[in-house]
């Protein structure tokens, strides 16, 4: 059975969107209930840098992929 790679890309993108939604709620919580101070701003900044670096490295690895190609599962 062959599944085109772009199907997996779509699943991956959905997962990233879910991750970003949770990230937003986490940052909202820490700023809303932890107040705006150095600790909350710095930890949120560090978290966002981690997300951006992970996504950037993933993009570097995945951008040359031919998504029309099929992955043979069985």
């Amino acid at each position: 059975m062959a599944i085109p790679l772009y199907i997996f890309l779509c699943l991956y993108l959905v997962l990233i969107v879910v991750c970003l939604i949770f990230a937003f709620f986490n940052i909202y919580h820490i700023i809303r209930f932890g107040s705006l101070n150095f600790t909350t701003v710095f930890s949120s900044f560090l978290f966002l840098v981690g997300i951006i670096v992970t996504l950037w490295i993933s993009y570097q690895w995945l951008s040359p992929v031919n998504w029309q190609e099929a992955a043979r599962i069985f």
Partner: protein
Amino acid sequence: MNPLYKLFQLNLTEQVILVLRRHWFVFFKKVLIFLIWNAVPLIIYAILNNFFPEILVSYSANTLIIMGISAYYLFLWLVLFNTWVNYYLDMWVLTNQEIIDAKQKGLFNRSVARQPLNRVQDVKAISKGYCQTFFHYGNVEVQTAGENKNFIFEEVPNPFEVADKINDLVRKQIKK
């Protein structure tokens, strides 16, 4: 002005005596677990490389592995941040008039309970186990009058000093 006044709507006559969070070692233990989970993809990669090298040669399998690793680290990073948010937002505030217990249980569950000091009946500090004894942290149980459940300051630094402080404030409150 201390942002806690706005956050917990404290009276201007109230004086914040202590703001307590769990001991840093409690969060550090979770960071250690996070570091162990970080190594999982590397271990899986080493196993594949040694026992099933043909999988890593396949173009599509390589792409799927990169996406899997990327999603895994994103998720792991999110879990660590969520752990930090829960750690930071769980706090106990002791003022000269009341005790406030603010708890963040997961992402969409936050509770704030408060008790005036004059309702405090008994205060007990407990430090047990190697870690708690060595790093000087533990629980402080505050028993209050009425139907409200007891307050437990969980894994706070210097529990015995905190219990003494609460007892002092309760005594002063009673004298008034």
